[in-house]
């Protein structure tokens, strides 16, 4: 397993490089945005004198590389810096936004795997028959609907017309868990697309695995159908799905921005949108670090799982 350890070490190194690159890229892009925090702050009162004063107060009159260097130095000491706009520590922003987003993401992933896999296996089991056609077309259809459209639709039907669920999470703050009903719609919206893609991948993988000689062999030797499906075929079908799952961090982020806006959940997506609008670079940077790290860790995890599920495939470090 020494090979595995050195592989992980190399992956972590790559992860660090990736995160650094993300931060640099984000910094460069944020710098390239028209206007800075001072201009954004001045808004419809772009009195030049006032902008200059704000700029000085925020330290924006210093060269970009100096500000970046300061920020990086701080980061190495575990300090994310302070928000330009509010003067509060960035770590506070991240900590506040992290809870709701993590809750949404965790719930989504927890539901995503069983539902996606279940649908995929069900469809594969009835390949070509009605159930399969139904699941396949439904997943295709839902997959094509962007989150915002689905969100509007679900609210209209389940919250406003039928009144079954609260339409937004307004006013629940961080106590989302105590009000599980407000989470139903957001999680449904977040789930929709990943479930579809996962189900489709699992279906394809299952069909292939069910047609493989080793499945035929187990069948030939009288192993029960359910056991073959879940313990013999499924692990093979999951390898490609796992990789896809890691990519859902990207999706979840897209989805989370939309869902947080639609359902008023004050998570990282909201923090990001506000910070970009405010040109609050330290906050955007802090978020880039968080997202970069999350992506790196998830991809590493996915590769490890793939390694376990498809041991033959050499995973490139």
């Amino acid at each position, binding site marked *: 397993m020494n090979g595995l350890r050195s592989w992980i070490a190399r992956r972590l190194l790559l992860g660090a490089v990736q995160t650094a690159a993300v931060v640099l890229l*984000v910094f460069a892009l944020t710098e390239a945005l028209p206007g800075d925090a001072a201009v954004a702050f001045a808004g419809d009162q772009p009195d030049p004198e006032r902008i200059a004063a704000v700029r000085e107060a925020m330290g924006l009159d210093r060269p970009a590389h100096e500000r970046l260097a300061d920020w990086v130095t701080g980061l190495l000491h575990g300090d994310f810096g302070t928000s330009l706009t509010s003067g509060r520590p960035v770590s506070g922003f991240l900590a506040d936004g992290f809870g709701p987003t993590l809750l949404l993401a965790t719930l989504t992933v927890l539901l995503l795997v069983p539902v996606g896999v279940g649908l995929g296996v069900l469809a594969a089991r009835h390949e070509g028959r009605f159930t399969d056609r139904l699941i396949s077309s439904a997943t295709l259809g839902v*997959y094509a609907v962007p989150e915002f459209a689905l969100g509007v639709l679900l609210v209209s039907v389940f919250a406003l017309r039928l009144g079954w669920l609260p339409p937004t999470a307004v006013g629940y703050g961080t106590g989302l868990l105590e009000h599980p009903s407000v989470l139903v719609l957001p999680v449904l919206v977040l789930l929709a697309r990943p479930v579809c893609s996962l189900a489709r991948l699992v279906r394809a993988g299952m069909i*292939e695995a069910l047609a493989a000689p080793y499945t035929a062999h187990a069948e030939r030797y009288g192993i029960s159908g359910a056991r073959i499906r879940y313990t013999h075929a499924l692990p093979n079908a999951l390898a490609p799905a796992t990789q896809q799952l890691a990519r859902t*961090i990207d999706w979840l982020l897209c989805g989370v921005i939309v869902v947080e806006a639609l359902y008023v959940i004050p998570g990282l997506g909201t923090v990001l949108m506000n910070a970009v609008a405010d040109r609050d670079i330290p906050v955007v940077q802090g978020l880039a670090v968080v997202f970069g790290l999350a992506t790196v860790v998830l991809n590493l995890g996915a590769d490890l799982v793939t390694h376990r599920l498809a041991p033959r495939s050499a995973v490139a470090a």
Partner: protein
Amino acid sequence: MKRLRRYGPGVAVAAIPLGLALVGPFLVGEPPARAASFTLGGGHRLGTDFVGRDVVHQVLLGGRPVVLVALAATALAYLVALPIGLISALTHRRWLEEVLMRPPDVLLAVPSLLMILLVAAAFPPGAAGLALLVAFVSIPDAARIVRAAAAEAASRPAVEALRMQGESWWRLAVGYVGRSILRTLAADAGIRLTGVLYLVATAAFLGIGVAPDAADWAVMVDRNRTGLLIQPWAVVVPALLIVALTMGANLLVDAAMESRGPSRKGRRP
């Protein structure tokens, strides 16, 4: 007959939006006079949109940009991903492989929407710019898929046999490897097209890239949704067309995948 059964549904579903997108702009005449926004009747068969324009007129015009941006972005992504993937799969120089595949790996860690948000804000793009941008964020993933598929094909003895014959790189890369991974690419392209459409639509939701009053189905869905309760057609029609486009594309991909028959994974020993 078999072909019809296989491709029929996909073609049928995709034909309406594609047809509208391609022919629509030639069918429209002068824009009808503006009316109040979100009204029904008054000679507007599908009512008016959020700035009082005729929805039918907008629908006819709005397909082309969506389809063009989506197709162009997908094509562009492959235009870059293909050489990267092919070269890195075929080269024996590890450094070259590193140089080609590491940057996409790094980009993979950047959430695509964050990327689009920032770039679009920094350099406000037009439709072409949006296509470029969406293509850009799709490159890493596409390059990885091309590379994986190409590496498999490149490791076959056929490639070594071609090398023994002194064949040129082009012939190897395009004539053999490219040809062998065509189906994988077609399947991936279908999925990517859906992803691109989704990104374009979501970008419109977030106000990126396209003029906010552009005749564009994705923009229409977003901008007209405020009037959903008083004038649903302005949202429902373009939304259904987008869904039909993605569904059709995926049905076609599925059909192509089915015709591929049993997987090629199990290679002859």
